[in-house]
Structures are given as structure tokens and as C-alpha cells.
């Protein structure tokens, strides 16, 4: 298993190098630079600022300089947030995205798994239909709609919770963003689990177990649920990264100081180093999450062990 993990990590290096190269080339190919603003800089001052950030060098030179920095773990200064380095921005934003993302994923599992199981076991009953309806709603309504609606109801009208702000991670500040972020994942998880559990419930080994008189609860928990979770685990890897990185709408609506906004603002502002830093971070997270999902799958299903 360890050599499997080692090999996968080695393969990740060229993958990341491709990501870095592509992102770097795309960013520098985009017209407009970080210091093109509505207040035009005097040419001498512009030149001095570009020299300070090595933007006056040929692009291949800048690329090599950047790679050198990345190898040393230094993602460079931010052009936009002048008091901070990209490392500072990530160190500050990542814990926030991790907190919101992991809580949302936890909540999604907490609701989605029972919902999926109930829907599968009570197939074609009112329970199943209700669960499917909830799931469909969760998938179809995007978070940038649900989030302001939750704000309107719970913050503006009822005044139970704040309409935004990180509030140093206080529970009352977390509730709305976490709920809004988790809703589509509740839906995905419920639907995925329902489908895979239905498949498993129709397999010969479940029929055999039932025929041998094994109690239904044992059949479900020991023989059916474990294999039914496999597709869910495969989904959870990238989904967890998605929930951590994909909360840009949530960050905007709730004014949360996470990385997603640095990424989007960085792209608009040609903050090359910030966009690169976040791209690399997201790349690493995806590689790691997929690896973790493979390891967990292998633990659940001996056939998948390397």
C-alpha cells in the first residue's frame, strides 16, 4: 500500500508541472496587466513598479523564477494585496474554506446518507418520492440562489442569525453558509446512495444472505451498505475538494475571507501570483483527495487493493 501511495505521489509531480505551465501561460497571454487601472501610472513609475516585481523580464525567465520560488515553497508577493505574500493569503484563507467545506460535507453526509438509504429501502413509496424531490431541488437550485434566500429569511426577516461575516468562526456565523453549501451535496449523496444501494440489494449475495435467514438489519449493514458506499467514496474525494474550493458564491454572499474570492479577484486583477498559488493549491488538494478516496475504497473492497 505504501509503495502504491508513493507511486501515485510521484505521478502527481508531472501533473502539477503541467498545471503550473498551462496556468502561467494562460495568465500571461491574457491582455491587460496587474497595473492597468483607470488611473494610468506615469510611465516611469509604471516601469519602476514592473521592475520591482520582475514583470519587465522575458516571460520564460519569469516562469523559471516562479518555478524556483515554488520549489522553495515561496509563492511570491501578491500584486493586489500589497501587505501580504501569497503564502500569507493561503495560510489565512485555507482554514476558513476547510472549516466551512468540511462542515458542509459532514452535514451533507449526515442528511444525505439516511435520506438515500430510506429512499432505497422504501422504493416507490411516498418516502422515496419525498427524498427524491428534496434531492432534485437541492441539485437544481444553485447555492447563489439558496444563500441569499436563507439570508433573507433567517437574517433579514427573522433576525436569528447574522447575514454574513466570518465572526472568528462563531457557530451562529457558520450556520447559514454551511447549510447553503451542503444542500446540493445532500442531494447528490442521497441520489447516488439510493441508486447503488438498489443495485446491491438485487445482487445474489444479498438474496443468499436473506435466504439463509440472516436478520435484515445485519444484511443491510454488513453485506449491502459496505459495497453500496463504494461509488459514494469515489464521489467524495473530488466532491470534498469541490466543496472546499467551490464556495466562491458562498464566500461572496456571506462576505467570508476564504481563498475562492482571492482566486476570482486575482483573475480579474491579473494578480498572477495569487492565481498561480491558488491553482497549485487546488491541484494538490485534488491529487490528495483522489488518492485518499482510492485508499479508502481499497480498505472497503479487497478487490480494489493494488
Amino acid at each position, binding site marked *: 500500500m505504501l509503495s502504491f501511495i508513493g507511486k501515485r505521489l510521484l505521478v502527481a509531480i508531472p501533473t502539477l508541472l503541467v498545471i503550473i505551465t498551462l496556468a502561467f501561460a494562460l495568465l500571461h497571454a*491574457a*491582455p*491587460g*496587466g496587474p*497595473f*492597468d*487601472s*483607470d*488611473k*494610468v*501610472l*506615469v*510611465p*516611469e*513609475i509604471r*516601469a*519602476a*513598479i514592473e*521592475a*520591482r*516585481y520582475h514583470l519587465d523580464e522575458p516571460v520564460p525567465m519569469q516562469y523559471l523564477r516562479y518555478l524556483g520560488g515554488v520549489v522553495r515553497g515561496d509563492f511570491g508577493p501578491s500584486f*493586489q*494585496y*500589497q*501587505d*501580504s505574500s501569497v503564502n*500569507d*493569503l493561503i495560510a*489565512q*484563507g485555507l482554514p476558513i474554506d476547510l472549516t466551512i467545506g468540511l462542515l458542509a460535507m459532514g452535514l451533507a453526509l449526515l442528511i444525505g446518507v439516511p435520506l438515500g438509504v430510506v429512499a432505497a429501502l422504501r422504493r416507490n413509496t411516498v418516502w422515496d418520492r419525498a427524498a427524491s424531490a428534496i434531492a432534485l431541488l437541492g441539485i437544481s437550485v444553485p447555492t*447563489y*440562489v439558496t444563500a*441569499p*434566500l436563507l*439570508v*433573507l429569511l433567517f*437574517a*433579514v*426577516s427573522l*433576525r436569528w442569525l*447574522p*447575514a*454574513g*461575516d*466570518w*465572526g472568528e468562526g462563531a457557530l451562529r456565523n457558520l450556520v447559514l453558509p454551511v447549510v447553503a453549501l451542503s444542500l446540493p451535496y445532500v442531494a447528490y449523496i442521497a441520489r447516488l446512495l439510493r441508486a447503488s444501494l438498489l443495485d446491491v440489494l438485487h445482487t445474489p449475495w444479498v438474496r443468499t444472505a436473506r435466504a439463509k435467514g440472516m436478520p435484515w438489519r445485519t444484511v443491510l449493514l454488513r453485506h449491502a451498505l459496505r459495497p453500496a458506499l463504494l461509488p459514494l467514496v469515489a464521489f467524495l474525494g473530488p466532491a470534498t475538494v469541490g466543496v472546499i474550493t467551490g464556495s466562491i*458564491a458562498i*464566500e*461572496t*454572499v*456571506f*462576505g*467570508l*475571507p*476564504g481563498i475562492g*474570492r*482571492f482566486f476570482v479577484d486575482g483573475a*480579474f*486583477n*491579473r494578480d498572477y501570483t495569487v492565481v498561480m498559488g491558488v491553482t497549485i493549491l487546488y491541484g494538490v488538494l485534488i491529487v490528495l483527495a483522489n488518492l485518499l478516496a482510492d485508499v479508502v475504497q481499497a480498505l472497503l473492497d479487497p478487490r480494489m487493493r493494488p
Partner: protein
Amino acid sequence: MIPAVRVLCSALVLSALALSGCSHSSAPAALNVVEAPGPNVAEGHLRRQIDQAPRTLDPGLSVEVPAQRVIDDLFEGLVRLDPAGQLIPALASRWEISADQLQWTFHLRPDARWSDDSPITAHDVVFGWRRVVDPATASQAAQMLAPVRNALQIAGGKLPPDQLGVQALDAHTLVVHLVAPTGWFAYQLTNNSLFPVPEHVVRQHGAGWVKPGVMVSNGAFVLKEARINGAIQLVRNTRYRDAASVKLQRVTYYPVGDRAAAVSRYLAGDVDVTDGFPIEDIELLSQQLGSQLKLAPYLGTFMFGMNQTRPPFNSAALRMALTLAVDRDVLTSKLLHGLYLPAYTLVPAYGGYEPPLPEWVKWTAEQRHARARQLYAQAGYSAANPLQVELSYPTSGPDTRRVLEALAAMWQVNLGAEVRLANEEWRVHQQNRRLSVHALFFNAWIGDYPDPQTFLDLYRVGSPQNHGKYSNANYERLIALGSNTGDAQQRTQAWQQAESQLNADAAFIPVYYYQSRHLIRPWVQGWQGNITDRHPSRDLWLSTQVSQ
């Protein structure tokens, strides 16, 4: 934020407001409009929304409004603006100007201290200014020091920073040498980049000197906590030179980029002051919130630029035709609901300056349109051969798009011109504008200080902002006259004549003057609208005795 998201958020907030209005028709002000002050009011804690996270808290690097809001609370310059926007002494108790107006001598208050109790000296000012123009600092604010001798040469790397025309005669006397008599220089001093910085702290901590726990400042408040894109918390500075007059205990700034979300935060009672609201909400908000909605004239003009070096806009007749065909009153009253004011000149009127209005302002719409059509025909255009041109503008909110569509329609109806809207991503637009790629383009300018010069410089030959390449020898002469005279009256006259020249040449198409807009809870006291839209928290206070 993604425009679609913005639209949707606004729509949702609006629909909620509308619904609440309908369901309580007997009490139209039903939704969170009048209410008791929260616990923050008794604690003296003011909560302010700002439009985006400040890019820096370093006065020497500050070039945009959100940073200015916070830095105005943390630091104080030689002079400052009072709540009405008038200049008053601050760190300097008085100053003298030499007869040729090239040398200014400032006398700093000897009792002023940094928040770490070390004295503030003239050396801190000299250090701060040299640092701003030093190319190693890479400050975009460097050009703010342009009136000071050698500033631009230093910023361009041609002279060392110690050649800057500023010196500390002793610990509390500062002498500044200017390039030319600069009547507005005292206003220039209110710019963040000309504030003093604590030399001993900056030298010790480098770029990290602005972090919470490290930053030492001299304003009414000190930095307690700051997160990029998150809340910035300030507490009262007990060592501030005028601490006795500061009434607030704490100030928190919340960066909320989306204006509809900012309104939600306000309605939810999370903030006491907002830095704006979506234009399309103005009618509903003014109905619901009444006097909590504050509008005030702002030192900014929305206009269009035209490239005058090539067809079609090398024709003055055509430029004037487009200018005359715009129905500004209709635009500002109907489409913008009175939020902005119709503009006929480059510089907005403010206390101390009246721009010269062109003659056609007094004409009826029919007279204006008739003259516009005449000029349009004179320029060689007709129904058979209409003007076909692109209007380039940067991606912005739905507000701007609606205004541009209305203008294109006016040109179509009043002249028969076919103006197509061409959207460009913000930085792409800035780059293309800088390179004078566009024929007809979006242009807007917010003055750096209340003096016409900050606007008039835009159309000087060689100005980096002169994207349309306007050039007129008489204009240059008038600007040189205004810049070099020490006589205030003569200067104003020169400015007015220069503006008349711009109007006569139809150098640009003025559309509207901006107004600042805020939502302010009734318990926030001391707020006065002013032309620079600066409202330091030291002049505000909270009162539980609210007159509703």
C-alpha cells in the same frame, strides 16, 4: 461578483422588500426600517461596510477608497478635512507659504505621539514621503507627490530618494519645496500617501509593519485585528493628540463587495453604515428607509472620450453633435431616479468653484436636437450614410449597461447614428484605453482633491490620462497659467477659461456628475455629506437618543 449573481441578489432583496411593503400596507415602513439601536450603540461600537477589502493598510501604498476609509481612521496627516470637507490643521498646527509659493513650512504639534508613545517628528514625514517615491517601494501612489521637487525623477530611478524636496529643519519643523506654485497642495496633504509613517517601526519590521499587533499609528484609532477580505477591527487610540474629542470606542469595517449583499447586511442589523446600494433599489429603499438614505454631490464625472486624432472623431462638428444629442435630464431623472446629476462640464460645481456652463444648456431639447442634426449633417452623415461606431466600455454592473443603452438609443433617435455597445473585460479595457485603441469610450474620473486641476490635467498634451489625444495650444497656455500663478482668483479664472475651451472643442461628452450614496442608521450622528465623501470615524458618534 458574477453579474448574474449580482442581479439575482438585488432581485431577491427587492422582492422581499416589495413583499413586506405589500403585506403591511397600513404601515409601509414595516421591514426593519425603524428600530431600537442594538447593544453596539451603547458600547460605542460603529460597524461600517466597505466596498471591498483594502488592498493595503500602509498609507504609503494606498490608492483606493476602501483602504482610504480605514487609513483615515488609523493615521493622520499634516492637515485634515472636517466633516463638511473643509481643510483644518491636524498634525501640523500651522504653516507658512513663501512669497513665491514654492516653499511651505509646517510646524508640527510637539505633543503629538505615535500609538507606542514615541514622539511624532518631522523626520517621520520626510521618511514617509521618501519611501513613497522610492522605486524600491513600488508604490502606485508615487505620483501623488508630483508637486514636490524631484519626486517624479526619484520615482523613475533617476535620482536617489534623499533628493526629494522635503526636509526636517528640526524635530517639529518641516520644509517642503514645490516644483510650481500649487494652490491645492494643502488638499494634496490629505492624501494617505502623504501621511507620516513611524520610521522606527517600518525600519524594524519592513513590509510586515502594518500587521495587527505590529502597526503603530497616529490616528484616532489603532488596529486591533485584520483579516484580508474579512472584518477589520479598530479600537480607540488613547495616545491620539485629540483623544478627548473622539467619542467612539471601537470601529469595525466589513468588506462586502456585492452591493445587494451589503443592503442585506444593513437590513439584518449587522452594519450601521453602508458605502452604497444598487441603483435600481433607490426608489424602494428611499420609500422604506426614508432619511436613512443619504445622497451628496461627489467630486466625480461620468463622460465619454473620443479619439480625436483619427476619423470619425477628428471632426469637431461630429463630437459636438453627439454631445448635444444627449438628453441628460431624462437620463438622470427617469433612468437614474435622481441618483446622479446632469453634467455639462468636466468639473462638478463645489464650494469655491463654478464651472462655466456652455450656452446650449439653456436651449430647449428641440433646439439642441436641431443643432445636433445640423452639425451631424455638416460632418457628412445622413440617414443614408449614418455614423457607425463602437462604444467601448468595461464590464460593469447592470446600472452602467442600462445607461449606455439609453445613450445609444438617444443617438439613434436624435441623430440616426448607429452606436454599438462593445463590452471589454476591465483590465483589457484599461489597457486598450491606455494605448488609445478605442474611438468612443467610457471614461470617468474621480478627483483626487477638490481643485479643478485634478480634472483639467486629464486633457493636457502628454497626460497619461489623455486617451483621446486632445490637443489645443490655448488650453495648454491656460493650464500653465493656472498652475504657475500664485493668485487664487487668477487661477480660478484660468481654470474656467480652460473649461470653456474644452466645451467649445467638444473634447469629451459629459454625461453626469456622481453623487455619493450611503445607508446610515439614525443613531449614527455627525455624518455630513461632502464633496470628497470622506467620513473619518473620529467625527462620528452613536446616540441611543434617536429622533425618528
